């Protein structure tokens, strides 16, 4: 091993496969997750590439309609459950939460490893279903198609998702107990970095929402295998019951995907603006408000389903309400930047990209929350653009921001800043060229989940597919230069960014026990003063 990785670091504590697959070290488990979700990111991305290739021409050329259905289902299932939901919490959260609170590990280290094994087991199950022939219901598994008419591998797929759900629940449980009980003495809740707040709120959602999905999928399987009829009107059931149950989980699920990203952005923006975050308390309350109100808005996915007008009005109002704490966060990041000493290292480029793209995606959410507009926009490409702006332009960019920001801490190496900045710009450009046209497509009436469309939509689809090619290139770049840095990157010291936070008070990479000497607790979080960040080479 190289000089940067001392034998005392967690990376040096055993080199065998066994030492990795039986580890209880939260840092190693984070890396196990990181490698796994990356594999799935590429699989989901391959499905997306095939989708965008098919959509280059208006009529089915590459794939049949049924295969197309399986492609967008695979894309959704893989990206939601095997990439986005675990991404920041299970990788950055696992690695950083104990460090940020001055602890040796999570509350239940063996449970943490079990979470990863459940993830792998569920993922392999779902992968088997996809290889055996796939599923064509969409990631939303709507009854009655999923329960009665689809001839694809629904039960196998929902079983895989069910198993992965328990991975999520146990991870959330671990974080909740850790944040409550393992904080180093003297570190109160309102001294915690916002990243920890974000992971904590996310964990509440993981624990409360995921079990609902699990049991709902059991009912789908029961309906499909035994024809129990709970979702079938002919047998006295109600297909809307499925939608209510599914979205009761799946709406909070999108907050699982965005809250950790918001946590990352707070860490990066403060460091590269050299300023404490504006309105720390409001930022923390906003995180909790998003998580709470997020449980009350699920019906906005069902405005045209036939639910009562009064339900629609209530969900619409609550959806506008949940935008308020999100907006507060955007205002506060902006105010943090104001009069800051801003530098544009790669993590900051990604974070700035997040703020803009999340804001755009969020604003379009307001259009969709309006009942009358949603009648026109629902099930169109407008919705697809909306959630990709938030999940890709938001969450994925924040994930990359976090990977780059904490790369020196995790690996002990600096990556090439030039290549990273270039990749960030390529990703930003590629992303917008891919997804902005989709807003227009949606407004003009292009339905989602269709591979065959009127030829007047082709120009915008071609733009979008071209953007996807750029985006794909952008995503490939980090894998090259980050991998390169593992071998050839310059060794990083404990705090190459001159950042605040307890994780920067230990070596890069950290020793197995995290803190050989007790870290100093700052008086307040983000204790930045206006001096420049240490310039990386």
């Amino acid at each position, binding site marked *: 091993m190289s000089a940067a990785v001392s034998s005392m670091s967690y990376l040096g504590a055993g080199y065998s496969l066994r030492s990795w697959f039986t580890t209880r070290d939260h840092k190693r488990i984070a890396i196990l997750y990181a490698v796994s979700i990356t594999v799935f990111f590429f699989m989901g991305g391959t499905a997306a590439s095939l989708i965008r290739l098919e959509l280059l021409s208006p009529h089915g050329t590459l794939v049949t309609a049924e295969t197309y259905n399986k492609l967008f289902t695979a894309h959704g299932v893989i990206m939601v459950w095997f990439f986005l939901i675990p991404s920041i919490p299970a990788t950055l959260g696992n690695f950083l939460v104990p460090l940020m609170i001055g602890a040796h590990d999570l*509350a239940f280290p063996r449970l943490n490893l079990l979470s990863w094994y459940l993830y792998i087991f569920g993922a392999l199950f779902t992968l088997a279903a996809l290889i055996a022939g796939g599923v064509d219901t969409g990631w939303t598994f709507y009854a009655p198609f999923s329960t009665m008419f689809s001839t694809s591998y629904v039960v196998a797929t929902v079983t895989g998702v069910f198993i992965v759900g328990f991975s999520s629940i146990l991870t959330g449980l671990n974080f909740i107990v850790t944040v409550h009980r393992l904080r180093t003495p003297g570190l109160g809740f309102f001294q915690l970095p916002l990243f920890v707040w974000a992971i904590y709120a996310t964990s509440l959602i993981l*624990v409360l*929402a*995921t079990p609902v999905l699990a049991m709902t999928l059991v009912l789908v399987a029961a309906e499909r295998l035994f024809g129990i*009829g*709970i979702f079938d009107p002919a*047998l006295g059931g109600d297909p809307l019951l499925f939608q209510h*149950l599914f979205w009761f989980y799946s709406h909070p699920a999108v907050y699982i995907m965005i809250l950790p990203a918001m946590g990352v952005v707070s860490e990066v923006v403060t460091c590269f603006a050299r300023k404490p975050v504006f309105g720390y308390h409001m930022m923390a309350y906003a995180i909790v408000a998003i998580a709470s109100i997020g449980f009350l808005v699920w019906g906005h996915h069902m405005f045209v389903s036939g639910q009562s007008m009064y339900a629609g009005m209530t969900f619409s109002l609550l959806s506008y309400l949940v935008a308020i704490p999100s907006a507060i966060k955007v205002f506060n990041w902006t105010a943090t930047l104001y009069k800051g000493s801003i530098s544009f290292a790669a993590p900051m480029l990604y974070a700035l990209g997040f703020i803009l793209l999340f804001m755009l995606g969020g604003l379009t959410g307001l259009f969709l929350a309006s009942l009358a507009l949603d009648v026109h926009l629902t099930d169109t490409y407008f919705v697809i653009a909306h959630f990709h702006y938030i999940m890709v332009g938001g969450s994925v960019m924040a994930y990359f921001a976090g990977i780059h920001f904490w790369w020196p801490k995790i690996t002990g190496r600096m990556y090439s800043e030039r290549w990273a900045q270039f990749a960030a710009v390529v990703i930003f450009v590629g992303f917008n060229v891919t997804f902005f046209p989709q807003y227009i497509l949606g407004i003009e009436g292009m339905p989602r989940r269709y591979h065959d469309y009127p030829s007047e939509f082709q120009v915008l689809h071609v733009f979008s597919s071209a953007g996807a090619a750029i985006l794909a290139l952008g995503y490939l770049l980090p894998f090259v230069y980050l991998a390169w840095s593992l071998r050839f990157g310059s060794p990083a010291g404990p705090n190459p960014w001159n950042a605040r936070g307890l994780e920067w008070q230990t070596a890069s990479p950290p020793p197995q026990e995290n803190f050989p000497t007790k870290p100093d607790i700052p008086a307040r979080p983000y204790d930045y003063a206006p001096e420049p960040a240490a310039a990386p080479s």
Partner: protein
Amino acid sequence: MSASSTSAVMSVPRKSSVAEFGMWVFLVSEMLFFSVLFFGYLVTRLHHPLGFATASRHTDVVIGSVNTAVLLTSSLMMALAGRSAAAGARRSATRLLAATAVFGMIFLALKGLEYAHDAQHQLVPWRDFSLAFEPDAAGARLFFWLYFIMTGAHAVHLLIGISLVLFVMVGVARVRHAIHVELIEVTGLYWHLVDIVWIFLYPLLYLVSRS
């Protein structure tokens, strides 16, 4: 959190251990897990009050009631086992844990018997469903599917609980090891949840229309 000299008779509340806190969080997730079935029951019953009333009268209220008593007793055994463990009474704790497991197994045995009877009386909503010609047969079918799924999910959790109790009991019986009080507390919490779920299942399934 010191025992203040001005406080009266109340004992100082003990801060739960990390393991207990973790189990409470897990129990909350379990409650959400079951809530889907309870919600499905609620919605379906609102739409099919007649079918539910009819079907519920065909459940075996004798076995159901006996099982309720059995499970409540098992919870008592579990609670006493926790007290014995905390007091260091190894033999008493072992016996009470064994009793807990035995009562749990009696519950499962009676449940199995009940399922066999249900099948015999053609209450499984497949072919030859015996309530197929009642008014609101659809409601009766849905009732019995929910009955099997809800009691089935409960039985799975009870089985997990029994395994946990047996595992802990073996640990307690090992004379050369200190009693793992925390583990027993945590197992007790899980056991009581399984019991509480049944407390709600019993009236919802067996007592809908027995006046």
